[in-house]
């Protein structure tokens, strides 16, 4: 009424190239001759100076004086010292492929547990020289996962264990000043979506239509449309398509030696249409997720554009990796489709996923459990999961519910953490204000909400 919808224009934003930060997630030629030791080695090499800097800051002024011991094995019994190394969690319930193979397969396979923790779990700190068992209340009361590089302060007791009295992490990485000024114009937003789940059990076509119409500005009153026009980019954080398990064709008699499975391609087509509609009016970054047709190990490689023949024509369509670094109007984003947190969840007592995400920020590493329990490409020369910058927005897709928190680093870095719920089960997407980094949700749920 006030404004003619036809004249409403979508706001634009710049995108910036983050160079190696982004490129590190791309694996061009896959080589599997190497083992995982290289990845751990690189991680320790890169993170050890960062952690050590924090450790010195924290502990060098102590009385009694604590000594930094470079090699874990050189730790002297009874001497107060601090060490930096990689955490290894020894957990007896950790899924073990040896058990799977050697166990009599007739016993019903162990049901997938929500968590693999046990009272007998022990925690070790390791560097190239060796490992030492960590004990002490500081250790038992907190949570850690394999692969985190951290520092510990304490001393070795006669049994050879290292009793820890304090710990320290790399902390948030440096951050470019978040410089978006207040203007007369309304704030720009980016929309975060995850878990469209097309083809899955929870998939509701109506909600997808609503979402598409919302993003393209076709529904709602002026207010919604104005809001929509302020969305400058959509990021889809994985699990867009649920690839149904290959169907065995039973119509033909069983034949040995032929793979009779066929893939259902309908969900991909629905998704292609959806993307095409949205791309016609807005930029989309599409990240693959666990259920998408992409590589299974992280970093997942961009979904092959040929699978989305209609969408691939659009210059607004960007098929990206998972995890993925992006920058919109100099606001940096780091996102994942959720596997990193889902995996950590299995190995810690806590149920608070937001807390886990916040921990990864403090650890300056978004996927410490890779490769130990989170399938991962065996990198030889880098560890792309180190958060060498503190992103302004750090989102994790396909979580059970929405949650958000602003974490602030020692040097004033601010990172907006967004736990992004799965769209197919909640009908919810999140919008993050690029100026204030505030985050809100928009719901398209057609089922009655519980509240």
């Amino acid at each position: 009424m006030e404004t003619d919808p036809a004249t409403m224009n979508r706001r634009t934003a710049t995108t910036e190239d983050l160079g190696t930060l982004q490129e590190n997630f791309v694996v061009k030629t896959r080589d599997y001759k190497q083992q995982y030791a290289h990845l751990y080695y690189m991680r320790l090499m890169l993170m050890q100076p960062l952690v050590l800097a924090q450790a010195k800051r924290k502990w060098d002024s102590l009385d009694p004086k604590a000594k930094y011991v470079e090699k874990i094995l050189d730790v002297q019994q009874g001497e107060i010292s601090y060490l930096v190394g990689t955490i290894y969690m020894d957990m007896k319930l950790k899924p073990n492929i040896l058990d799977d193979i050697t166990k009599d397969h007739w016993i019903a396979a162990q049901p997938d547990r929500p968590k693999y923790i046990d009272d007998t779990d022990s925690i070790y700190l390791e560097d190239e020289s060796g490992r030492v068992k960590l004990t002490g209340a500081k250790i038992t009361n907190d949570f850690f996962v394999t692969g985190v590089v951290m520092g510990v302060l304490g001393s070795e007791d006669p049994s050879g264990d290292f009793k820890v009295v304090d710990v320290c992490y790399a902390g948030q990485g440096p951050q470019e000043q978040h410089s978006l000024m207040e203007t007369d114009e309304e704030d720009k937003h980016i929309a975060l979506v995850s878990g469209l789940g097309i083809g899955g059990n929870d998939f509701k076509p109506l909600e997808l239509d609503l979402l598409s119409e919302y993003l393209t500005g076709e529904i709602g009153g002026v207010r919604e449309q104005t809001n929509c026009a302020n969305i400058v980019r959509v990021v889809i954080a994985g699990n867009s398509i649920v690839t149904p398990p290959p169907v065995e064709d039973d119509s033909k008699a069983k034949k040995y030696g032929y793979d009779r499975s066929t893939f259902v391609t309908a969900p991909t087509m629905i998704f292609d249409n959806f993307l095409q509609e949205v791309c016609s009016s807005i930029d989309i970054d599409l990240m693959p997720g666990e259920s998408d047709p992409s590589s299974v190990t992280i970093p997942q490689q961009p979904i092959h554009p040929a699978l989305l023949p209609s969408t691939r024509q659009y210059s607004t369509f960007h098929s990206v990796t998972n995890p993925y670094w992006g920058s919109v109007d100099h606001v940096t984003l780091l996102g994942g489709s959720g596997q990193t947190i889902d995996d950590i969840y299995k190995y810690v007592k806590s149920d608070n996923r937001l807390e886990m995400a916040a921990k990864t920020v403090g650890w300056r590493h978004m996927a410490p459990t890779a490769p130990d329990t989170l399938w991962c490409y065996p990198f030889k020369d880098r560890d792309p999961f180190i958060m060498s910058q503190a992103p302004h927005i750090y989102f994790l897709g396909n979580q059970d519910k929405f949650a958000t928190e602003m974490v602030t680093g020692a040097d004033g870095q601010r990172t907006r953490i967004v736990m992004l719920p799965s769209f197919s089960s909640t009908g919810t997407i999140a919008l993050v204000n690029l100026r204030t980094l505030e985050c809100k949700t928009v719901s398209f749920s057609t089922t009655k909400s519980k509240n």
Partner: protein
Amino acid sequence: MSQEAHTTKKRRIHASQLEPQPSFLEDLEQLQETNQATKVDDPSVLWSRPTCNKLNAVTDALVFQQIEADEYMDAASHTPVVRFYGITEAGNSVICHVTGFLPYFYVPTPIGFKLENIPAFKTALETAVEKGNSIVRIDWSFKESIYGYHGGEKIPFLKITLKDPRNIAAAKRAIERGISFAGFTDFTEQTYESNLAYLLRFMIDCHITGANWIELPAGSYQNRNDSNSNAQINVQVNYEKIISHQPEGDWSKIAPLRILSFDIECAGRKGIFPEAKIDPVIQIASMVTVQGESKPFIRNVMVLNTCSHIVGTHTMSFDQEDKMLAAWSDFVRKVDPDVVIGYNTANFDFPYLLDRAKHLGVLKFPFLGRLNDIRTEIKDTKFSSKAYGNRESKSINMEGRLQLDMLQVMQRDYKLRSYTLNSVCAEFLGEQKEDVHHSIITELQNGNEETRRRLAIYCLKDAYLPQRLMDKLMCLINYIEMARVTGVPFNYLLARGQQIKVVSQLFRKALEKDFVIPAVHSQGGEEQYEGATVIEPRRGYYDVPIATLDFASLYPSIMMAHNLCYTTLLSPSTIQKFNLVKDVDYVVTPNNDSFLMEKKRKGLLPIILTDLLDARKRAKADLKKETDPFKRAVLDGRQLALKISANSVYGFTGATVGKLPCLQISSSVTAYGRVMIERTKQEVESTFTVENGYTHTAEVIYGDTDSVMVKFGVKTLEEAMELGRKAAEIVTTKFEKPIKLEFEKVYFPYLLINKKRYAGLYWTRPDKYDKMDTKGIETVRRDNCRLVQSVIDTCLRKILIDRDVIGAQEYTKQIIADLLQNKVDMAQLVITKQLSKTDYANKQAHVELAERMKQRDAGSAPALGDRVAYVIIKGGKGMAAYDKSEDPLWVLENNIPIDTRYYLDNQLSKPLLRIFEPILGEKAESLLAGDHTRTIQVSTPSVGGLMKFAVRTATCLGCKTPLKKGESAVCANCKERAPELYQKQQNIVNGLEVRFSRLWTQCQRCQGSLHQEVLCTSKDCPIFYMRKKVQKEIQDGTATLDRFVDW
């Protein structure tokens, strides 16, 4: 100085009270202080035993558990002395010299012999022995021979007591050959008890059993100052003063024995098994644990050259090997272990160390026992026993220390597919062990202190595993209990066969009952007697409950029930002589031998058996009550030892190459057994009939030795169990006590394949089955590949547990199809054989392969003593079978086709037919042929043959048409299917990626380090070939996926 330090400390504490500090600082201080108190600068202070106050021989009694004993001749008195090695309850070591006991044997007096003939006889015998003054005395005593019944009369024997045990054999021979003396010419007689070792004679006469507690009352013994002894307490006592505590009640305890478990590493040359003359010992890891404690209190490793610190381990570096060896021998003497264990220590570690020390001239090394003047030496021993087979090994003497080579224990007590430490650990500890190939060992040693540290950790692990195995399997306790039950010294258990245990018990009982035992010559005759009976099996698959009735301890109870013994054996002449009446005074066994009835005289063997079985009952009853896990373990070990002992008595009487064979007894036992099985069958089949009011007529479908399988015809477990119990009761009444038929279990379903070959689901309660039981279905044979074992196992489970015969057939077909299509994991197909010598008479697959591998790379090729793993590959026509073996890794790398037919025809088919024939009959053959065997996939080798000339053409991933130029993945016709084909390929690659991740992270975990590369080459590990294979497959898979790049 110290005062100053003290005050600063105080001041600091004071300061901390003033200022509020973060809580961890307090923790920190606390830590520092406790650490200062407990910090151990030199871990070697832990080595020695607890200190021991000098005993006052007048006021202090000495109590210790003896663990080993030997004998020596006292140089002064020329009499034998027994030397006990033991441990007090406080953990002090004891050597106790027992004097005064002289060896003796018996011989029946010649007819007409009189007391006054003794001196002449003595002189004649001494002359015959060719040793003057060798006989101490000859006594006249009345005894009865154990062999045969003689109306209970004792006859005169001469008890000949000698000075030197070594002269007994000569004296025995002389009498058997015939000696002449005053009025007696060529007196020839069988001797009695002349074939018993002095030590055992002594222990029997003093009522000392293996590893029991001995008490020397105050005032009974003298302290000794032996310069040659490493023990803390050295005493001497006359044998008559010893109090021997029978291992009962409180005396069942076990002293805090020190157990040393160790392992060595040698730096071998490439491709050659280490030789002590050339290749150095580079590391020795040792763990010392006190029996009953869960963790070793000494953990150390001695390393040639520098080595980085290992947490919780005392690392000692040496710049010279001879110094290291000397230090280790010092360590052993200082720690003074009572038990030394390891893996293959008897045949490798000890001989190697000793040879190496000799080569390097380490003079003090070979004195590892408790006596520092006795050199530790290697002897070759041959051990042959009916039960354990022939085995050649080396033996090493270490006075006062028991040796338990866990490899020998495993080979003796467990039947396994492989006896490598790795597979034994996988079997019993449920974990894989990192295995470093010996070519890498040298590399690690020649690296830096970090790589040597890595090797040291590996070495430490290998030193600890035998200890953990021993704890897990309770070997030490079980052996100690066996020694106590049977009365033989501990070291007899590993070094000697079954017989000696019965001998010990028989002599003990004979002594008690005043019998003497003839020293018979083993005839070694191949006299065979009829064994147990087998009721012809009615083969088939039974989908109804089959009740199993067992005779409890069948052979022992037959011997007890019918009073079968040496002492009750009657000859026709004896029966006549004493006017014995059949079935009143004696019984005639089904073997037509006659034995006196119990009311006339109870046999010695039945008494021994009754004692053993009663003791077992007591032990089992105590076990039920006992809650302390350690005491439970002892009791459980005891009841097991008692059972084994009871069962070995029968075998003793039947052993023709034995100390005292008596085939009348053993044949009668088996004859009774046969009759009883037949009788049981009759009773069951005549009682449980429709005519007698039962719903079905029972049928005995199989019976063997001591059990019968009955099909009562009922459908439910409850009914079958009820009838089983009833049948057992009824049949038991038909036999003499204590023979007892027991109902134990029901098999349901039951697959009866043949004699001694069956499988079934085992139920003792109707609500849940206990286990799947299989007999004689050989899946553990080593020359089978793993595939056989897993297929047979799965089939049996499907048939018996899931009751899905169709499913089992489908599964079998699928596996065969997978096999023929090359989809079976390589690890499943690997066959292993030990390369024990290179010059076999016939060419052998594994030897030929080892030779070929040596030509490829001498470094990684298997050396003598290694196990060679191989797979059978496809060969050209007429290629000899032994040339078709190939290294699995080579096969993987070069895509060499596997001879899948070989695996089907030579490995799988027989065992499969065996289990399916009883079910399917003739149709079983159809499993091995048909549709599923028609598709065959053979990998294209990358080496050899025609491949040099072959040109590879890319084909369409959809329809396999050769691709045209410009097409990378699919042809024009399949273009439409490209997304589907892409996803399919992506899925394959994803599967492989997950496998890759899981496999390699597992190895990373297993080796205990994230930052170091995995070196392990354990061929026994089920994932070893998988991880290699997945690397290759994933590379190929991604290459195919990459072809979609431009589509």
